[in-house]
């Protein structure tokens, strides 16, 4: 199932590397990625695809120190 997310991360390239690594490792295939620098943050819009429920990704992304917020767009957020 495809999901679109907007992730606000610290404006450092390693912060983007870090959350992309988490997405891959947790089993979410990257379909689209758009990066926009805004002051101290990057706004990353991305589409991922996986058979796994999306909360398994959002809960891991929310743990990352550099991630300020994770917003899920296209589908209703599945309850934990």
């Amino acid at each position: 199932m495809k999901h679109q997310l907007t992730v606000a991360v610290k404006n450092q390239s390693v912060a983007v590397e870090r959350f992309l690594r988490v997405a891959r490792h947790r089993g979410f295939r990257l379909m689209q990625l758009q990066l926009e620098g805004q002051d101290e943050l990057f706004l990353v819009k991305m589409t991922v695809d996986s058979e796994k429920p999306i909360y398994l990704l959002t809960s891991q992304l929310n743990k990352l120190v550099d991630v300020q917020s994770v917003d899920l767009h296209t589908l209703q957020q599945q309850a934990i």
Partner: protein
Amino acid sequence: MSKTMTGAQMVIDILVKQGISDVFGYPGGAIMPIYDALYGAPLKHYLTRHEQGAGFAAVGYARSTGKLGVCFATSGPGATNLVTALADAMMDSVPLLAITGQVPTAAIGSDAFQEVDVLGMSLSCTKHSFMVERAEDLAEVLQQAMHLAVSGRPGPVLVDIPKDIQQALVPFSPWSADTQAQEAPILNDLALANELLKKASKPVAYVGGGVHSADAQPALMAFLEQTQMPAVSTLKALGSVLPEYEYDLGMLGMHGTKAANLAVQECDLLVCIGARFDDRVTGNLAKFAAKAKVIHLDIDAAEIGKRKPAAASLVADLNVSLPLLQGVLAPADWRAHISHMQREYAWRYDYPGEKVFAPYLLNKLSHDVPQDTVVCCDVGQHQMWVAQHMKFSHPSNHLSSGGAGTMGFGLPAAIGAKIARPDNMVITVSGDGSIMMNIQELATIRRNNLAVKIVILDNQRLGMVRQWQELFFSARYSETNLSDNPDFVQLAAVFGIPGQTITHASEVDDAIEKLVNSSGPYILHACIDDKENVWPLVPPGAANDEMLTENTQ
């Protein structure tokens, strides 16, 4: 007015001011300014003989005390050698600060001598990592790193510091954790959890390593005393449930006790306290505690529902969530059934052979050492026998590489534990395979005259792999024969460590007495039967009530 010093001096200054008294490491080119600042500083550095040894010593230091462990390594191979210890600390949620030297800023990206992209390498094996890019950021980064390592769910944090930043004059800027938003507890399910507790007729407490991380043994025991609920422990939790607790069933999972596994399979409510439904615990997940509703208590929201759905979850420090549970006394017939299983499936030590029986040796050792002895394991059959046959009164007394399962953990972890707790006896129990993985650390024991006791259970095999080859790979013993091992007592003697070899069951009691009464480091080399297996065993893909035992073979 901010005081100015070099970056290297700042590193040492901040560590000292934050109360760090001991660090482990190995110097090299890109971290030389920090080692220069260390010279004469009020911070004791322990030189290990491999950076992995430094990493595991810091892990042992942290796990045996609950304090932050700190290790240093240089760039390139120094940092890559730390990676296994970082991964181990990540899997077992150990608070660890790793400081690595890096090539100078101007040389980064040029494939300079001893240059590795350590920041990139750290992404999968740390809770967080930094590379200090500007001298003025150093103080803040270090303080933040130390805070991150110990806060929330603890873990390893790495700070990579280019050599020019270590040499630059840097200002000190105070940083306060108060400026960081603290995670608020999520306790919405509390009423539901208490309702589930009230209705349960066969409740089981499934206790994990989170109890140690949260220093929540008193809160756990208060809950258990109130409910008299049977308790099963993960490998990392062992010691959290006090051994005198009437319904302590020991470890569950692949090599868990039969009573623990059967109780979980039968239960109708599983109260998961700081555990994460690891595959070695659950066996076939679909069949794990299939009749049970789950109440999941954890500080990490990402663990809720990761492997098994929870009917109710409390995301908070266990010292906050556990006291909120309104425990009711577990039904008498369930407790009677548990007591019956405890008697029915109790361990037996009346081994008929003349050879040394490892479970007996370990059980005897457990009885004969002082209560606050720290036991550090390596990985394999001996590790499971320790988990099954030794008793611990606190999780900081049982250091075992759980999630990562790292051979070579035991000896350096014992070094770290002995330095952290010099007044307690520290024993590493290892196998003839594992001990060779970090054998160079005997030199660290010698250098510091550390009274670390070493027990090697020697079956001249990579025993756990051999056991699986016997059971699941048609007895094709590929690369598991170690009958060309060195003479371990002679090997230890070269490092000034006395000891003895035993081969017969009749020698065990006296040998343990000698080990316990030895004043300095000591090695007990116990030769055991190479065909001995660890029982019970839940085979791969099976449910936890489908255990193989010696008698089913």
